Structures are given as structure tokens and as C-alpha cells.
């Protein structure tokens, strides 16, 4: 058995062989943006999940126009193969990939194992920031079929349809909300969305080298919790980044047709007046 859409995944060897490929752009997207400055894959550019990909004012993503500007300035054309990698088992790489898909970029890939595997294999990291000839990128209208908003999530919960909570078990149980050090990412209530099953994101990756588990293991993991391919599935976490990894696994590695990421996640739901909560 292989992944359903293996073209969305490349290994470190493939990336090493395509460092000078003009049709490929490698993007580092990290939880900690300083890692790029300390050393990155030669030729890779950086997008930051916060300063690049978020709207500067509202809690939302950058606009379509800003997305076009970002891509144009990074020398990305509409048909460029964009390969994402990053720290923390590719959380933020998957988040960036999801957002590229949101604005219609089709040719996207994740480097399996991310930064950790590249480092483990002692492949080169450089400090030099590359620059590429500007392009004129044209984005598509936002694809809302991969993004869930709160009203849909409520309907999904009331309709007893599949919801996956990918946070750690203690966040699911409501024991933890977030650390006091991160007040903006906090929530006033703990627990989970009624009906959501707990499948922590980390169960989809191998701890040793951050690569994804085998198709068999992944299928057993999600189907074992009754998350099956026929129905619409919504995944969420705390701010929508860990759940974009689960979204990637369900959509491309397992081939589920209808998967959405609820980026509002617990920092919205746990603050939402009148929202139902289960503990």
C-alpha cells in the first residue's frame, strides 16, 4: 500500500537533487523563525506563519493581493513546484502548504522529515539568503472548501459528524489550556468540541526522524477512531497549525476527499460565548 497522493511528498534526497532546479522553490516555514537565519537549505526562502501569512490587523490570513505579492517577490510562478519544510515535524510547513492551497497554488509538496531529518543526515545548511527574479503571480479566489469556520464546526458537532481534535491529551481533557506565557493564544475555557475524537497529531509521525508513518499505520490510526474517508472531516487544534499537519495526512497521504482545517481552533472555540464544550 502506498500513500494515495505520493506526489505531495518528497524526501530529503529529492530536495538535495533539486537545489538548482528553476522550477522548484524550497520554502522553510518554522515555529521559530530564527532557525532560518541560523541556517537553512541552500537556496531556500522563508515564509513566517505569523509575520508573512497572517493579516496585519484582523485575525485572518493575508489577503489574496498580499499573497500574490509574497509569491512574486520570492520568484514563485503559478506553476512552480513549491516544497515546504520546517521544524517541529513540519507543523508550520503543513500550515504554509495549506494556505498556499487556500489561494489555489496546486503544485505543493512537503519534504518528509523536515528540518530534523535534513540535519540528522548532515546535509548542508547555509546562512546566505537567496534572491530570485521577480514573477507576476496570480492567485485564485480563496478555496473555502479546505477551511472551516465556527458555524460549520457547530453544525458538524450538532450533526455528530467527524471532528478530530489533534491536541495533546491534556488539552483535550481540559486540564491544560495554554501556558501563562502565551496569553494571546489562550482560551477562557478548557475542554473540547462535543463529539470530537482525540487523535493527537504526533501519532501520525515517527518521533525519531519526523517522517510520516506508513500508509497502513495511518489508516489504522484514523479508521480505528472512526474517522473515515467518505464523510466530511474537520480537524482542529489550538491555533490551526498542528491540525494542518493532520489535514495534510488525511487529504493527501490517505486521500480523504473532504477535509477541512478549522484554523480558529481552540483559541476561538474556547472563548466563544455560548459554544458547547465537552470535558
Amino acid at each position, binding site marked *: 500500500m502506498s500513500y494515495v497522493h505520493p506526489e505531495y511528498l518528497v524526501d530529503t534526497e529529492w530536495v538535495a537533487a533539486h537545489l538548482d532546479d528553476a522550477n522548484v522553490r524550497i520554502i522553510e516555514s518554522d515555529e521559530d523563525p530564527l532557525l532560518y537565519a541560523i541556517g537553512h537549505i541552500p537556496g531556500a526562502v522563508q515564509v513566517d506563519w505569523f509575520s508573512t501569512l497572517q493579516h496585519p490587523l484582523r485575525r485572518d490570513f493575508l489577503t489574496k493581493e498580499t499573497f500574490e505579492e509574497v509569491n512574486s517577490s520570492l520568484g514563485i510562478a503559478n506553476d512552480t513546484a513549491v516544497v515546504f519544510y520546517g521544524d517541529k515535524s513540519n507543523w508550520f510547513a503543513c500550515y504554509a502548504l495549506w494556505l498556499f492551497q487556500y489561494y489555489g497554488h496546486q503544485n505543493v509538496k512537503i519534504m518528509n522529515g523536515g528540518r530534523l531529518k535534513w540535519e540528522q543526515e548532515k546535509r548542508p545548511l547555509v546562512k546566505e539568503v537567496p534572491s530570485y527574479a521577480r514573477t507576476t503571480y496570480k492567485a485564485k479566489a480563496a478555496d473555502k472548501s479546505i477551511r472551516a469556520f465556527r458555524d460549520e464546526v457547530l453544525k458538524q458537532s450538532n450533526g455528530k459528524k467527524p471532528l478530530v481534535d489533534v491536541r495533546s491529551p491534556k488539552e483535550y481533557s481540559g486540564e491544560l489550556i495554554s501556558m501563562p506565557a502565551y496569553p494571546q493564544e489562550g482560551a477562557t475555557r478548557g475542554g473540547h468540541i462535543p463529539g470530537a475524537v482525540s487523535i493527537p497529531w504526533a501519532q501520525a509521525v515517527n518521533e525519531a526522524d519526523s517522517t510520516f508513518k506508513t500508509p497502513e499505520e495511518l489508516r489504522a490510526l484514523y479508521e480505528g477512531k472512526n474517522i473515515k474517508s467518505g464523510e466530511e472531516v474537520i480537524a482542529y487544534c489550538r491555533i490551526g497549525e*498542528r491540525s494542518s499537519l493532520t489535514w495534510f495526512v488525511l487529504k493527501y497521504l490517505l486521500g480523504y476527499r473532504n477535509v477541512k482545517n478549522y484554523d480558529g481552533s481552540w483559541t476561538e472555540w474556547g472563548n466563544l460565548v455560548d459554544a458547547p464544550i465537552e470535558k
Partner: protein
Amino acid sequence: MPIPPKLQEIVDDFASMSREEKLETLIAYAESFPALPDWLKEKRDSMEAVPECMTPVFLFGEKQPDGGVHFYLDIPPQSPTVRGLASILANGLDGCTPEEILTVPGDFYLSMNLQEAVSQQRLNGFVGVLAHMKHEAVRLLENK
């Protein structure tokens, strides 16, 4: 409330730097992190786990004979931003008394304009580490 002189000096230095200099200096702080002495390793290992989104920050304050506090820190190298921010605080507050540490205003870093180098969101790391240091200062005042 006054910012202790050493910390104020670091804040002023950053305020006058370009974005690139800020990044380089922050990286230098992150990379100049001393290793945790052996006698604290057991204490670190018994530290409560943090939710997986967060960076585990181990911090221990030790009162010196002159009454000043020295902080020992351990933060994984995979989190250079938090390491850099914590290292700035550990340097800036080294030798301060617990009372002085407790008076450091929570927004001391605003004039550093660090948000142009790392996002505003990440600067919450400062708030977290400072809160942790104040917690240690209270423990030392209570002589625990």
C-alpha cells in the same frame, strides 16, 4: 519603575540597531548560551512537561554571597528565539537583587523594537521568561 542598568543598556543597544543587526545579535545571544551545570540536571529532568506547542524553559535562580541573583537556564537549541530572549534577560538581570527583579516592568522590551526582527507574537517569550524569573525571585525572598 526603573529598568536595572545592565538590562537598560541592552534595551538601548537593540533600539539603535537595524533589523539585520537585531537578528544577528539575537542569534549571538541564543548561541552564547552556557551549558547547564551538572548539579541542576536532575532538577531540570523533574520539571513538569509543557504542552507540546510550547518551548520547555528550565530556569533556576541562585542567590550569590553579595545578595545578587544568578540565573541558570536550559532551553533546547531548536528554539533559538526563546533562547535568545531568555539569554538577554539572564544577562541583563545578572547580579540584581530579588527585589530589583520584581520591579522590572513587564513591557521593558517595547523600545527594543524587536518585533521588526521577530514577530510581536514571539516576544511573548519575554513575558513568560520574566514571569518565571520573578517567580524564582519570590522563592529566594521566602528563602526556599
